[in-house]
């Protein structure tokens, strides 16, 4: 009898706790605050994406233009990349164009000459 009373008490207590939790939850849900803000990021101007040219079958005997962007590091590295490629492909040819990196729009003639001469181009160097 005592045990049944204890069980009943436990059930009532459990129910009370459960009820309290539900009520608290309802209260919390009722108090939830929603903040709506506007996205600060700009839409980006679309740039038509162009595919890159078909790759070369080999570099042997090809003309590789070097687009030196006039940053100090480009001058330093240019001879070594040419040297190691020449070791692998003795008949490879190089010709360099120094075109200021921040003045490409005004250097169309130089860039066209580079493209016309070259089978492939290596751009040097940031930074």
């Amino acid at each position, binding site marked *: 009898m005592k045990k049944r009373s204890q069980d009943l008490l436990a059930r009532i207590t459990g129910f009370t706790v459960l009820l309290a939790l539900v009520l608290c939850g309802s209260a919390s849900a009722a108090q939830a605050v929603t903040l709506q803000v506007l996205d600060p*990021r700009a*839409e980006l101007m679309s740039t038509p994406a162009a*595919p890159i040219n078909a790759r070369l079958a080999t570099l042997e005997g090809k003309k590789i233009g070097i687009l030196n962007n006039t940053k100090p590091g480009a001058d330093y590295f240019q001879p070594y990349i040419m040297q190691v490629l020449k070791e692998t492909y003795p008949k490879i040819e190089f010709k360099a164009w120094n075109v200021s990196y921040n003045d490409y729009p005004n250097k169309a003639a130089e860039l066209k000459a580079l493209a016309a001469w070259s089978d492939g181009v290596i751009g040097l160097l940031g930074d």
Partner: protein
Amino acid sequence: MVTSPFLDDSRNAAIGAGYPDLPIIALSTATTAGKSAEDLLPVAKQVRQTVIDALTQEPKNKAVTEAKPVQAKSAAVLTFTGKTADEAAEKMEKHFLANRWSDGLPMVPPTPEAVEAMLKGTDLSRDHVVGTVDPKHGIATVEKIAINAVMAGARPAYMPVIIAAVEALADPAFDLYGVQVTTGLNAPLVIVSGPIIDALNINFSFSTIGPGWRANSTIGRATRFALINLGQAWPGINDMKDLGNPAKFGIVMAENDRQTPPGWQTMREREGFGKGASTVSVYAAQSFRQIHDSQKYLAASKKPEPVVDPMIARLMSTSLNATAEQWGEEIVIAFSPTMAENLKKFGYDPAKIQKELFEKGKIPRGLFGPRPLGSFAVTSGIPKWIDDLPDDALVPVVPKPEDIKIMVAGGKGGGVSYLIDRWGFGNSRYVTKEIKVPKNWDALLADLKGWETPITVK
């Protein structure tokens, strides 16, 4: 090919230029400049096969290469929920920080209501495009500027200044792409001139460059938010400034008309605007160099032009800083009213100061930079004739005297002024735009009541 820190930067640039498939190869070194064959030959050998593959193998994962036109559209609504308003705001702050949309300081939530109120600061429609902001070519609509102005804590009455500043930043003459992505330690300085300074309670007096005034602080901050969120420049990703610059928080300097010596034109007048106009200028400021009044401190020297002499040293040092790298098109000098008064007393006006600094601030060719100046001199716009001068020939640090921009700003104190040198490794020009106020200007100014900090003028 790029050095290792510039891989993300270059990828972003290639995508922005419309070549998402362009092979970009990073070297295993942070810099190649000044290194020997012993250092660089192994680096070249390391990347040899990668270079060969890049030229001979099709990209494995071809990016979408179709153009996708983007139209400026209304801002998306973002929702944050919390048990309290503070918690919801904190969630917003954390989200903005995680996405690099913040300057790191607490922000005002750009709610639709706050943005609507901010839009009352202009007659332009919310979808009006003010310009595109580099490096990501963000479309600067009035609405997006307003959202960022709210975040900065600006008042609607500041909008005409903020819009004009964004217009100036987006002007191709400013070379914002270079300013944003460079390793050079610059940040746009916003300079306001004209009657709007009084109207908006912009501090033009003591510590004009500094905190304490809502207009100065939030107009500057709003322009920085525009650079972050419209231009989408992120440190270490596509903003490669090694150390940054305190001015990257966004700072405003205001011209002190009231204490400009009689007979001296204002900055806006020398830039071609009327005295009654209000203007905002942007300048790719790099270093703020103090000029002392040597009349006071070095009076015993009794030099003929004791006030100008220390400026000459400062001016010369801008070119000695990095072997000709700083040979820029412009230098800004902001005189305190006291120094301006002293200069006038010695018979100077801005034109005479410009001429004298130009003539006396030349440096010997031998100190100017390496010979030949090399390909990077082309980048800095250094003319070939400088390269051909003998070592003892003198080189001017700006192309012509008018490129020394002179204004009076700050408080009338000890006569301490600034020479502000410019980011030199590019083609950024000082750009000025007129500020246009909307029809409801009086109502906007009425809203400023209570938002003012007293300005001390002595």
